[in-house]
């Protein structure tokens, strides 16, 4: 049984904040396929397209038929633990700080045996459910979870090290005026977040959503991501306490590239690309420094992006361009955060059921669904979360052929 995670005690000011260390990060190019699957929370291994053999460890040719057509495919996650060990000695600084560390040999129903992290609730002989997760180095690893959920299982230290679960963590929700902000605050608090701060730009406008935010358990803090000063003030006051950032600011105005409005476009970039950069510069270094700070170590930077970041809807061309820029910023941010282990999670949403998408036909994403996916993504430690039917559809088509999708989106298809 997993011990429920106790809230962290207040920090002893005499103690040095631990510097983050990372598990081994080196991987072959083939092995990065697991990272790609884990980034989306998918359990996938290489399968030979010719003979169907499942390969592990990742490789460049099939050990069954020497075919080089190996494709990553989702597989049934069942397996059985054949052997286990608790490692008490390791020359690696990351694991040295976490000993003893349990690993096991799991025979997968899909075929191969894998060495995997063991959840505390599984032991030799147990039936398990395998999951691919990202470790603090940002690389895909396998963990054997109990076949059926166990109480407090997400609090298991081995699992928590692979996720960014909000429990006992403090979250900055960047834009408290966002229509989905109360739902997200509520979901984060329900998942155990110790605090949710909701940013509010232009307090002088007043904010009708304040009551809903308060009811959802969020405290409003002044934050205008288009104003370096405001960002610096927030970072000064809250920078050392923010464990998870949810960048949900959104500046959406209809308008294509030719017919669009230059000022709207600049504002969109100011919010999405520059705003993201401003906030990252202000909060990132403190978060990176606190990435090993105990139970509520800084863990994740979440960007809520439009799926149009991948491929634009030309009717929203300017907004989509700003989203694409934000996606690029988010990817660079991954590089910046790499040494700290802070996860950068991009949550791609289709059209949200808000005022700006009012004339669009369904399906549209409800705020509650967005909030649910946000918490799920954090609990899985995912890097890419596809939220809603539209986002998943675009992701599929984009993965299949971006050019075909482009033609369809720009009015060349059916």
């Amino acid at each position, binding site marked *: 049984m997993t011990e429920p995670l106790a809230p962290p005690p207040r920090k002893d000011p005499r103690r040095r904040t631990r510097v983050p260390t990372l*598990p*081994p990060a*080196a*991987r*072959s190019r*083939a*092995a990065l396929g697991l990272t790609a699957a884990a980034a989306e929370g998918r359990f996938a291994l290489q399968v030979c397209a010719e003979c169907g053999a499942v390969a*592990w*460890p*990742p490789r460049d040719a099939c*050990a069954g038929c020497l075919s080089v057509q190996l494709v990553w495919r989702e597989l049934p996650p069942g397996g059985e633990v*054949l*052997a*286990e*060990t*608790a*490692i*008490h*000695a*390791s*020359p*690696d600084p*990351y*694991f040295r700080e976490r000993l*003893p*560390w*349990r*690993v*096991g*040999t799991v*025979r997968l129903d899909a075929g191969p*045996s*894998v*060495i*995997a*992290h063991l959840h505390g609730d599984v032991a*030799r*002989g147990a039936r398990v459910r395998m999951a691919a997760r990202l*470790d603090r*180095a940002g*690389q895909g*690893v396998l963990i054997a979870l109990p076949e059926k959920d166990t109480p407090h299982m997400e609090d298991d230290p081995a699992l928590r090290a692979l996720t960014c679960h909000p429990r006992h963590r403090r979250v900055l929700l960047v834009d408290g005026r966002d229509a989905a902000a109360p739902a997200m605050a509520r979901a984060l608090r329900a998942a155990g977040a110790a605090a949710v701060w909701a940013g509010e730009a232009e307090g002088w406008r007043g904010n009708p959503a304040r009551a809903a935010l308060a009811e959802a358990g969020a405290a409003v803090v002044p934050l205008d991501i288009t104003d370096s000063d405001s960002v610096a003030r927030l970072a000064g006051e809250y920078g050392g306490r923010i464990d998870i950032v949810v960048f949900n600011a959104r500046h959406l105005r209809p308008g294509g590239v030719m017919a669009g409005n230059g000022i709207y476009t600049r504002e969109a970039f100011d919010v999405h690309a520059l705003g993201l950069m401003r906030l990252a510069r202000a909060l990132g270094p403190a978060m990176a420094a606190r990435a090993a700070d105990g139970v509520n170590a800084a863990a994740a930077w979440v960007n809520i992006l439009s799926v149009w970041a991948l491929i634009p809807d030309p009717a929203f061309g300017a907004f989509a361009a700003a989203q694409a820029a934000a996606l690029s910023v988010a990817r660079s941010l991954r590089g910046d955060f790499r040494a700290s282990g802070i996860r950068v999670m991009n949550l791609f949403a289709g059209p949200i059921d808000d005022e700006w998408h009012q004339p669009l036909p369904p399906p549209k994403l409800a705020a509650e669904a967005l909030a649910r996916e946000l918490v799920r993504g954090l609990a899985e430690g995912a890097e890419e979360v596809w939220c809603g039917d539209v986002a998943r559809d675009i992701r599929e088509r984009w993965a299949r052929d971006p050019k075909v999708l482009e033609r369809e989106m720009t009015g060349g298809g059916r």
Partner: protein
Amino acid sequence: MRRPAPYDGVVLTAPVTVPYRRYSTQSAHWWIARALRGALAAAGLAPGQIDGLCLSSFTLHPDSAVGLTQHLGLSPRWLDHIPMGGASGVVALRRAARAVQAHDADIVAVVAGDTNHIDSFRNLLSSFSRFAQDAVYPYGYGGPNAVFALLTDRYMAEYGATREDFGRICIAQRQNALRYPHALMKTPLTMEAYLSARPIATPLGLFDCVMPCAGAEAFLVMREDEAARRGLRAARILATIERHNAHAADPIQLRGGWSVDAPRLWEAAGCAPGDMDLVQTYDDYPVISMMQIEDLGFCAKGEGPAFLRGRDLTVTGDFPHNTCGGQLSAGQAGAAGGHLGLVEAIRQLTAAAGPTQVPGARRALVSGFGMVNYDRGVCSAAAVLEGMA
């Protein structure tokens, strides 16, 4: 499959061990040079008189055997580099013996050496293999200890072996090591100390694990008449086997490649396990020694624990095993660890083992096991040797 040709007319001689050290500030080149010089001195040869070199080393980087010829001023007409870790000794013997037999070389020096700097073990691990990098080290970074802990755990569950069964192997080897002048471990080991040692990776404790160190081993391979002409005591090769990536479909390693090839080994050698006067297994972990004893036919699979319970594994016992203490007590000097048992066996069969000498030792089995590429050792090899009384 045709039976391989016998190793008629080829012998092993001039066994040399350069005393091991826990850490060394010297390079692998330094250790290899000392071993080679020792073997040449033992045979009364000058460096220019060897025309073959077979090298094994992990820490020679960025050099290889090629670089070493220039470094050491050698001009061999036959050169090989065996990157097979714990199997490299027996495999080197196989390669060198055939080269001499075919007159590709007249005298081959088989040399293995590695250094051990502070942190060099961690560096070695981190670049050991692609599968280990991708699929083992990210999981606790326990190195080979963790992998063998898993094998041991499974072996114990499968066959009912106990920690005491493995402890007996370690304790007997420590007793042998107390006689061996070059062993790093010189404190007697009790069962209580073995069982209560700090855990390394459960079920493995401290005394189940080898201590990485610096060291070098060497011997010479030449024709029998050449050895006789020089008055060198030598050992003959009765048979050898080698196998890689056997039993790939086994979900976890409970047997090695020996189990595929052992029948042919004994058939070619013309003798049986019971005819061995001593056995040198590759002992990076006691479970592997247990596996070799089973897979090479001393007992059936899974009966290793019972087989060993009834036997005395010391130099003076009824089943002399790893007579110089093995790597568990002498230390693991990188690739030289794959030559330790072989060099000791040549000493035994040429009556040169001194304090560890098994009286009247005539036949020896030497086994090698190497390269935990992912979740198991991939290379296995064995040789049956005979002294020339």
